[in-house]
């Protein structure tokens, strides 16, 4: 698969879900502490989210790093915009900015 195909698939994915997390593993079985932390934050916020397990797709695993200009996984997208990795998620969660951002973007939380 070419880089263009991977980019097209990523682009389609981030626009298809309001909240999308690229992660290692699944919400039930995260394969990395950072992904686990990202899931915990999303669960705490009570928001509906989709996930993509990059360990199942080598093309996306490499492609997402270039797509976001971000070297690590997890990566959070909200309404097609890159929000950040787990450190930024944690910081924004603690300050309340993440809940604000979701509200601003019209994503409903519990």
């Amino acid at each position: 698969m070419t880089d263009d195909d991977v980019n097209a698939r990523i682009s389609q994915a981030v626009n298809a879900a309001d909240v999308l997390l690229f992660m290692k593993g699944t919400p039930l079985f995260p394969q990395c502490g950072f992904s686990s932390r990202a899931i915990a934050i999303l669960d705490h916020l009570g928001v509906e989210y989709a996930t993509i397990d990059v360990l199942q797709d080598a093309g996306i695993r490499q492609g997402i790093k270039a797509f976001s200009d971000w070297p690590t996984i997890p990566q959070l997208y909200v309404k097609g915009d890159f929000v950040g990795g787990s450190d930024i998620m944690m910081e924004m969660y603690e300050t309340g900015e993440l809940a604000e951002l979701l509200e601003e973007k019209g994503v409903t939380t519990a």
Partner: protein
Amino acid sequence: MESVEIERMIREAIPDADVEITDLAGDGDHYAARVVSETFRGQPRVRQHQRVYAALGGRMGGVLHALQLTTATPD
């Protein structure tokens, strides 16, 4: 990767940066870094982190798996 090396690379790219590295696990592999620079002012967090990652020249996500990063501007 040695913490002094991480600090040196960040300072080289962001000369005014105040860099504080903590070795989280004592194994030379899991670090936390806090980088404070006036040049971050007005930049979104994602951009601030991207600048630090750029300073580390591709090591992040490679030899440096675990670097918890916090960025800030001076008070």
